[in-house]
């Protein structure tokens, strides 16, 4: 397999140079002639991940980047992941990876729940990977796992706060208990409340979201509004459809289904 350029391969080196011009052409100005300004005004980088090659910026009118400097393939491409290992524990979950839409992800989770020993199971699922499967976002409750599910499954549900027009989404897979969820919601909406305060909008006191003026409820798969904490965490995960932060004073009125839905669809 061809390797990278050896040191001092002049022709190749020039081809790979980063210049303010298309490769092979003389030094044309790209854009609006800001080249000199760019060279001078670029802020220094901070805390970049170490690249395998060295990068040098030379203060010339031609702003070039020397990226040659023959490195071996073995050398440069040692990544944290040990590729020769077959059985490696999954790395920490990456947001939005692999690139699969929520609709499909939720259906995968539901299908995984459906492939129990009773149903037609097409594949021999490695039992040890059960921990990695996310529970379905819909009706089928899963067997108990150890509280925290590893492997990168995610379960985004909407959360709305009374008085705040824009809802947010939280990934319930990121938490393994009600307490952690409460803290996260607290942090999430505190910022929004402060923002509203600045604009002189309707605002609550700077108390903890749950236990203060507000309380956290959820809607389950049957449309009922429930207080958090009544059922075990795992069961909550399998029935929760969305979350709401409501004022305690309006709790009674919000018991009816669809009570304050108009918050979510303002006319303006």
């Amino acid at each position, binding site marked *: 397999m061809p390797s*990278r350029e050896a040191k001092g391969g002049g022709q190749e080196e020039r081809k*790979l140079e*980063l210049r303010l011009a*298309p490769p092979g052409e003389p030094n044309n100005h*790209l*854009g609006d002639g*800001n*080249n000199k300004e*760019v060279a001078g005004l*670029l*802020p*220094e*980088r*901070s805390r*970049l*991940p170490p*690249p395998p090659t060295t*990068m040098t910026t030379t203060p010339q009118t031609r*702003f070039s*980047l020397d*990226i040659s400097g023959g490195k071996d*393939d073995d050398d*440069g*491409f040692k*990544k944290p*992941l040990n*590729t020769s290992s077959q059985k490696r524990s*999954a790395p920490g979950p990456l947001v*939005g990876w*692999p*690139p699969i*839409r929520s609709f*499909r992800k939720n*259906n*995968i989770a539901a*299908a*995984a729940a*459906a492939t129990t020993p009773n149903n*037609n199971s*097409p*594949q021999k*699922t*490695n039992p040890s*990977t059960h921990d*990695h*499967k*996310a529970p379905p976002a819909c009706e089928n409750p899963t067997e108990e796992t150890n509280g925290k599910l590893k492997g990168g*499954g*995610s379960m985004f549900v909407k959360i709305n706060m009374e008085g705040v027009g*824009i809802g*947010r989404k939280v*990934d319930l897979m990121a938490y393994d208990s009600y307490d952690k969820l409460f803290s996260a919601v607290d942090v999430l909406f505190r*910022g929004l409340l402060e923002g509203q305060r600045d*604009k002189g909008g309707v605002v609550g006191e700077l108390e903890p979201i749950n236990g203060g003026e507000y309380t956290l409820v959820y809607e389950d798969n049957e449309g009922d509004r429930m207080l958090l904490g009544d059922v075990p965490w795992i069961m909550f995960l399998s029935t929760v459809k969305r979350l709401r932060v409501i004022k305690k004073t309006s709790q009674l009125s919000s018991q009816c289904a669809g009570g304050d*839905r108009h918050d*979510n*669809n*303002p*006319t*303006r």
Partner: protein
Amino acid sequence: MASPLSFPEEVLEHIFSYLTLPSDLNSASLVCKSWYSADRYSRRSAFVGNCYSLSPPSLVSRFPNLRSVEIKGKPHFADFNLVPEGWGGYFYPWARTMSVAYPWLREIRLKRMVVSDEALELIGRSFANFRVLVLAFCEGFSTDGLAAIAANCRNLRELDLRESEVEDSSGHWISRFPDSFTSLESLNISCIAAEVNFPALERLVSRCPNLRSLRLNRAVSIEHLPSLLRRAPQLVDFGTGTCSAEVHPEVYSNLVGAFAGCRGLRSLSGFWDVIPAYLPALYSICFGLTTLNLSYSTIPSPDLANLINQCPNLQRLWVLDYIEDSGLEAVASTCKDLQELRVFPSDPFIHEANVQLTEQGLVHVSLGCPKLHSVLYFCRQFSNAALMTIAQNCPNFTRFRLCIIEPHTPDYLTHEPLDMGFGAIVQHCRDLRRLSLAGLLTDRVFEYIGTYAKKLEMLSVAFAGDTDAALHHILSGCDSLRKLEIRDSPFGDIALLANASKLETMRSLWMSSCSVSFGACKFLGQRMPRLNVEVIDESNDPCSRPDNCLVEKLYIYRSLAGPRFDMPEFVWTANEDNSAMRSSLALSY
């Protein structure tokens, strides 16, 4: 000014009505003032690729006689939860403006927009001849909004909710179509979670003789299918609901009969949780199938292969990786007309492969299916050799999207980066318009892309490249580039600023978890008034941090409208003094 070449405006408009491509009409409008004017009044459809690239009033003022509008909102990576909730993409301002300006509007197609019930109600009230509503990957509305559409749009032909998020208020919205309503041609409700009133649906299907496309949701169970199919034997495209109930002989034979009656069926989808024993019920119509979407079906490979062997005329196939390499071999030998293949992962969150699907499957298909030009393929291993073989077999690729589940995965045979393989792809496939890279990749592959991929319009990059040279190759080399989306790659200020003017020739650039500094964003935003440079940062106010701090997410797009007014608190624009932008929070939904 009279000249031999000047026609009355009506004649010009008539001639222009034969030009269908927006690019042709755009060119015509640049010829002279009278052609500009003729195009302006005769333009009937508009495509707005980025809802923030111009304001609704400027659209209606330029094109006062539109009948059809297509608008896209959020960037593509919003599909993968990279764009926080509340980012934007609201349809209501468009609805409001168009409701006044276009009383004769017939068609609205939206993608990744936030559509409120109020907007849907406005559509129902405002457009007497409304015919087509397509909401692809949208959100923000409920079945109440759908009820408003059903009740008011007397001439509706198409209602397609393609994978949108719909809040379920009631399943009775279907009943809101009046008894006198018979014009429906296409209905796609596959994304609706709750049950829809089935008798009402049956009656609707019965009284719409032109219904050619019907896609049901999961809640419709299999024993309901025969009665629907018998009422609509003219269907061309059908999507089932769940097919997981235990096979009953009576239900099964009912199903066989019902499918056999639909001689014109060309496209099938749905099949959630389908039990393989049901599949032979489809055999009578398999010969005519051109599109088959089994990507929600957990059917094992042998049963899939049996089904596919019945479908020699298949042009488009979407499946889960349960098909395995062996199933794809069956595809390669049977489906000689295949044009598009998508293979989705059944269990993307585990490291080990749960099925025997490797690069070999795609190699087989590339060899056996000469018309293949569009691929989306999720797998866990690949090799440069396989990519080169595929490139040589399929020089006509227009879309090639590969995803290797584990980031940074090298060629599993040689442990090298996949630079050469993708280099072969862009070198052989000169018509390539869309490319998603995968695996371990260095700057080298970007040099190839910049050199060869001259027709590339959209590029997706994740966990790839080493230095800014890579980004520079793309921006300076890809002449046709419209959309570039990058995540988790070490690209930063230098390449971005050096190619600033390129960004005005593109629709948009997305960069997340890269190495762009806030200072560079500010610089770019201030120097390029026709670019909106938006920094998304949910943790903190980037203004409070030093200029050399890296931004979390960056979305740059060209715009005639200037900075937008509906930015949430976690979006900063670098165009102007930020405190001025913060205070003008006139949110519109």
